[in-house]
């Protein structure tokens, strides 16, 4: 069976380690738990025996290693955690949505047969029983901690509602933004109605809310460029200085530094901004040729920038992209980075 949730386990290890060593070394208690969904599935085809370790990994700040927990699943696309109870974990995958209430010890696939290929999942911090599920054909909502799901798509187009990303506004209950094929949609009623706040010609790939300013949001698209909002997603402006003719796969803030932003693009690699998005710089020196950046993420405990390069080793940079070092997880795709405050604000 899968091991216990490292959220609980790592604290136990931390305590055991300090007691065992009986030394004055004091590890700085990280403010966040930092997770990734990683698929190390090069050459994997459906049906074959999995020979790699895939799925959820947690950053062990003591050993500086990625530690796997939960099931070995090659298809995880996103993860969310109940802020009240870190043992309640949601992961989206090819099968749909998986829920664990015991820190990854056991899991249940709770979507119906007509929901498949979950893309993203988000928990409302003000109403943690309410969970939002992004699907290739729309959006589903659970009000019972992921046990059951119902479609909530009123206001979404009949076609054009491929939802790649969904994010709950942490400043207001039931306020949610969804990145769809035809734009960004907003609900303030927990999904009962949606309205489009940014029309796009192609898929919205990622939506992120600033950890510094809840009114500030960023969005990136397939071929419609990158966008930012300073009013909680009501209005959007195009970001200048980034290429916009090829897809940008994701965007991230740096919780340690308000002005630092980064994006990942298959075609253009990693670009960063250190002035809040006013200007951008390509940061591919030291990454493999023909970069194929899949996703970027920042460890909020350290400000370390990570770049997942398509089926290559995960890379990290401690100078926000100026230099890169290879990390572990050779041959991986990291589909999601997730930071959970250990103490809820």
């Amino acid at each position, binding site marked *: 069976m899968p091991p216990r949730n490292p959220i609980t386990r790592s604290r136990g290890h931390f305590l055991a380690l300090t007691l065992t060593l009986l030394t004055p070394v004091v590890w700085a208690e990280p403010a966040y738990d930092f997770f990734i969904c990683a698929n190390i599935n090069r050459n994997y085809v459906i049906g074959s025996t999995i020979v790699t370790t895939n799925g959820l990994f947690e950053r062990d700040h003591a050993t500086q290693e990625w530690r796997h927990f939960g099931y070995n699943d090659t298809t995880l696309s996103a993860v969310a955690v109940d802020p009240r109870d870190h043992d309640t974990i949601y992961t989206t995958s090819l099968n749909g949505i998986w829920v664990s209430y015991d820190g990854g010890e056991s899991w249940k696939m709770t979507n119906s047969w007509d929901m498949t290929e979950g893309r993203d999942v988000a928990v409302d911090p003000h109403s943690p029983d309410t969970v939002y599920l992004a699907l290739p054909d729309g959006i589903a909502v659970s009000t019972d901690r992921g046990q059951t799901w119902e479609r909530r798509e009123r206001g979404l187009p009949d*076609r054009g509602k491929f939802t790649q990303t969904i994010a709950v506004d942490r400043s207001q209950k039931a306020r949610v933004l969804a990145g769809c*094929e035809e734009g960004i949609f907003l609900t303030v009623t927990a999904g009962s109605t949606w309205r489009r706040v940014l029309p796009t010609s192609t898929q919205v790939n990622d939506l992120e809310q600033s950890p510094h300013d809840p009114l500030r949001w960023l969005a990136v698209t397939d071929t419609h460029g990158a966008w930012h909002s300073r009013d909680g997603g009501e209005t959007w402006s195009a970001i200048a200085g980034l290429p916009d003719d090829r897809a940008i796969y994701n965007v991230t803030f740096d919780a340690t530094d308000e002005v630092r932003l980064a994006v990942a693009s298959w075609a253009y690699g990693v670009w960063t901004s250190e002035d809040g998005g006013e200007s951008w710089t390509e940061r591919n020196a030291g990454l493999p040729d023909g970069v194929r950046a899949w996703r970027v993420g920042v460890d909020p405990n350290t400000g370390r920038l990570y770049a997942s390069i398509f089926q290559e080793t995960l890379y990290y940079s401690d100078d926000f992209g100026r230099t890169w070092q290879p990390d572990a997880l050779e041959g991986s795709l990291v589909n999601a980075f997730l930071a959970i405050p250990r103490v809820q604000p």
Partner: protein
Amino acid sequence: MQFLKLNSLRSIGCLAAFAVALQLPAQPAFTEPFSREVVESVDERRAQYLDRIKQMQDFRIGRYAAENFTKMDNSAISMLLTRGEEIEACNRRVIELMETPGTGPFWMFPVTMVAYTGRDRLSAEARQAIRDAWRTTRQLRGDTENHWVMYHTAMYLMAQMYPDEPGSEWWNGLSSEENFVEGRDWLLDWMNITTTIGQGEYNATHYIGEYAIPLIMLYVWAEDPAMRQRAHIMLDWLFAELATITLDGMPRGPNSRTDDYSVVERWYALATYFSWQLFGNVPAGEGYRGWGWGNYFAVLAEHYHVPEVIYRIAVDRDHDILQKDRARSRRIWRYSDEHMRPIHKTQYLRDQYAVGSHQGGLSDPIQSHVWDVTWTVDDPRDVHNTMFSLHPHSSGRVQQMFFCTFPEPMPPGVTWEGKPSYNSANKVLGCSPYEQVMQDLDTVIALYDIPPEEDFPQVNGFFSRDLTDLVEHESGWIFARGGTTYLAYRPLADYRWEPHIRYVNSRDPTVFEESGSKVLVSPHVKNGTILQAADGSEFASMADFQAAILNLPLEYSLEPTPSVSFTSLRGKKLSMTFGLNPRVEGEPIDYDGWKLFEGPHLNSELHSRVLTISHGDLRRVLDYNTLSITDRVVR
């Protein structure tokens, strides 16, 4: 790409094949002559059918005998369990295999087959090993229709075998009841939509097995008599269409879910196995090569009785067949107003050749085959008995329409996952949004209006190494004979010849060789192909055929939009402008009015869920509404 030491590879391959051949068991289906004669005696037909099952089982089991059954796969285990032989070896092997379970429908349905064939014969320890695997190993549902048929069938049957167990006993945390209901509901939805608006993965050359095998498992093992009857109806439905669209047992275009080999060597397909098994009208390859999962169907095939009306459609033909049928595209997630496009198939089969097509455009992201003419040969093994053209389309955006993916990774990625040609200019497999096709009997017009910025702005025409009398006529027509069939191919723009590439390893696009056939490459974005076929008996000579073709009125223009007006050999005036509805004798083709099936053998009204299968005096009506199968003899 480059040619990589193919002589060495071939030598190694030959040595390996020779070594394997020394150990191969007897295979009368390969070594003995075969006959396409209609078997009139019901008893004799059944006896031959059962004999073919036995041959394949003997062969499959025999492959593992030399190693004392220590390496056998799930199909051989299932065969031995069915026969009640080598049970201890089966126990050992099952326990060993369950130590490293696979992860998805291609693992689930074979293991389900072992679980059922072994439920009264495997040891308690072996059965527990299977049960444990279904508790501990997370399975994938997959992302295509065939995946889901296999997955939900397996979950339905395994939940039926282990009822009343809580979610903690299943890998997905669902109880037996929840798993059973989910499997059942998906299967009912799939059957409903397929009998209403058509099959999604229609006329698949290989994936027919991924439907037929789960269906026969449900037919044999479902405890619910309604589910058994549904499976029976769907098996008949599937095989009736197979019988109708095959030519001497070989699948031909159009096809969803085909591959680089099957599209040129038409015999080389799992669909051919089903013709061999059900109808006996096609020879087997050495070691049943190219027939993939057929051995799994053979485990249960004795439980199925081929209806005479279906058998006769396949083998007893004395007139031309014109079928106009519907199917549906793969489900489209995004970048399209349509969830599933209707596919309109035209099938015209004669004694010595057949012409088939659909209307063009996108029907499947990678493995479609839109149209061809295919001819008969005495022995179709290793013969490229077909001709067609296509636009070699490759697009990340199209992959996004059908898959949950970003635009860039899939075009190169799928070339390492069994679709080696996908991202190559010289490929002869696939559909394109920039291709439109019309067909009237044995005439095809394919027009191409390709954006110049496309990765591969060209049209490829496949010309078999097995053609004879090939002439590039000064008129612009290319004449040839395929078997006894006369062929006239008219490219509407200049062209050059390139060798046809055969991929040696479907999971490595860098290893390939020339097949001996060739590809007509026409590097023009405004383009078209006209194909006219005729039977060898219609003309005294190739010269007469050429003269007849050259006398046919033909007008065309390529700018600004490709447009053709052509009077066919059958006297029909066919006109077509890319993007507009094609016309026959001035009348637009009424695609919206097409039935689900319409022709001499298969007839079904759209949305009716009733299929009437006809041959001569024989009628079989599959009524999915009433779950009834009715046979009649019409006098």
